[in-house]
């Protein structure tokens, strides 16, 4: 019962790609260069199926930016990326603004902003397309060993369903692959799907 039809997945992919477009233009404004961001695919997993392979995040350490959002359905949205590559991108972004040696700790805040831009863009396009209102907490950033970060996701027992968006981000010469995951309860997923179905029938 908790699987998505081809049509529903297509609709979600489309919605999130619109969000990705918005995020890319915000990021371009900061970087002053072209930024490409796309969401090639969306998948639904049970939390028990989540590991570094299903997320294609094979790196000893992951960085994560998390926002809790609420509305017609509730979810925790997390942007996950390999720490090393994300740092490279943040460094590039900062290099156009400031001296690199100034910033070690500020990377974290910058990372938070990067995640915030991408998460907000995806949430806002979902809200717009599905014609609903979503509220969100401020972003929280944390970084840790991959298994520790993943365990956090899996251990959310009241949100056993995980919508996974694979994300490709290119800034200047850098390329970053990450994941946006939505942790959902079963009832939140049903509500999301009801909105999706309404959206599909409205096209």
């Amino acid at each position, binding site marked *: 019962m908790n699987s998505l039809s081809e049509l529903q997945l297509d609709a979600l992919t489309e919605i999130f790609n619109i969000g990705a477009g918005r995020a890319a233009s*915000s990021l371009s*404004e*900061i970087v002053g260069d072209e930024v490409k961001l796309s969401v090639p695919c969306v998948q639904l997993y049970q939390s028990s199926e989540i590991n570094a392979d299903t997320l294609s995040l094979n790196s000893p350490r992951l960085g994560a930016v998390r926002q809790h*959002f609420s509305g017609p359905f509730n979810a925790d949205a997390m942007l996950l990326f390999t720490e090393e590559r994300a740092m490279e991108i*943040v460094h590039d*972004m*900062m290099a156009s*603004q*400031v001296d690199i040696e*100034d*910033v*070690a*700790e*500020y*990377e974290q*805040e*910058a990372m*938070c*902003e990067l995640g*915030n*831009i991408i998460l*907000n863009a995806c*949430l*806002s396009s979902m*809200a*717009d397309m599905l014609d609903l*209102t*979503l*509220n*969100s*907490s*401020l*972003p929280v950033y944390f970084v840790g060993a991959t298994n520790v970060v993943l365990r956090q996701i899996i251990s959310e027992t009241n949100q056993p369903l995980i919508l996974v968006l694979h994300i490709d981000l290119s800034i200047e010469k850098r390329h970053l692959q990450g994941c946006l995951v939505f942790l959902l309860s079963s009832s939140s997923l049903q509500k999301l799907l009801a909105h999706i179905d309404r959206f599909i029938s409205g096209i």
Partner: protein
Amino acid sequence: MNSIPAKNEFAFSGEIGGNIAENIWDSIKSGLILVDSEGKILLWNDWIAQHSGIPAESALNHFLGSLFPDGLAAPFKTALRNVLQHKLPIILSNALHRSPLPLYPLPVAYHKQDRMQQSVIFTPIVTSEKKRLCLIQVTDATLSIKRERVLKSHSERLNKVAITDALTGAYNRRFFDERFTAEFGRAQRQSIPLSLIMLDVDFFKDYNDRYGHPAGDKALISVVEALKSQLHRPTDVVTRYGGEEFAIILPDSGSEGGRIVAEKLRTAVSGLNIPHGTSSVADHLTISIGIVSYQPDTSCNATCFLEAADTALYRAKHDGRNCVRHLVAPECGKPCPVDTPQADSPD
């Protein structure tokens, strides 16, 4: 004091009157600005008034963008627009934006040149009448940046202390162990040459006995200075291996280059002419040097390479001291002497 805008949108519990709320936000040590969906200012707390140099009377009911002669930075405007439109919170990090608003350290009049470092948070607020407002919180990031710089310089200093020999200022054994493992690994992986020098001050115990420990300490300091003066590549550094024994790793140096360096080191220390009346090899302080060179693509490992350097040093001592002895370590456990002229004659 700021006055709450005439069309006050706030409601407080009976316990807290508007007056108290006003006192609260004026006491807060960060900037609070509330704007409506048009960008008109509804709240401008004391902190922001002080640091912008714009009093509340001049700010309230004006448009945020019109208050500043240079207008607002593009990312700031985008963030504000997005918050009002999508009602999702946004942060502008200090690392990526530095100083989005023209705010200055106090007193503002003296600091008009340098803007305050800021972190900004935008939070959407929807009133009971469904009006969309945006709360802008500005925090001064200057202190955190300073703190971070101090911590960084402390940690750099401690890192330096942790790898430095207190007496001579040479690198210490801990540094040697780490550097040697890394350099040997690199030589092996990339099949590039590597030489290692081990040297020992001749009859140093007798020197200490004759001239006293303070003089011995001074002599070691002079020896290290003399050694350093002969090493010109930043990668070639003197490490105190123990007591009066020193080691020098020479990355990318084969047997020929390594031997030249070793001979220069021996000459330099001898040239210090530190009198040593109880030395059996000269009337001044001298050193014995063992050097071993790595042959790429052989089975030699780090341990046997280190042992070979020790063996070379032992030979130099055995052969009369104040001389250089050289080994290449082609296969593990079988260091072989290089065919070199015997005499490294004492000066």
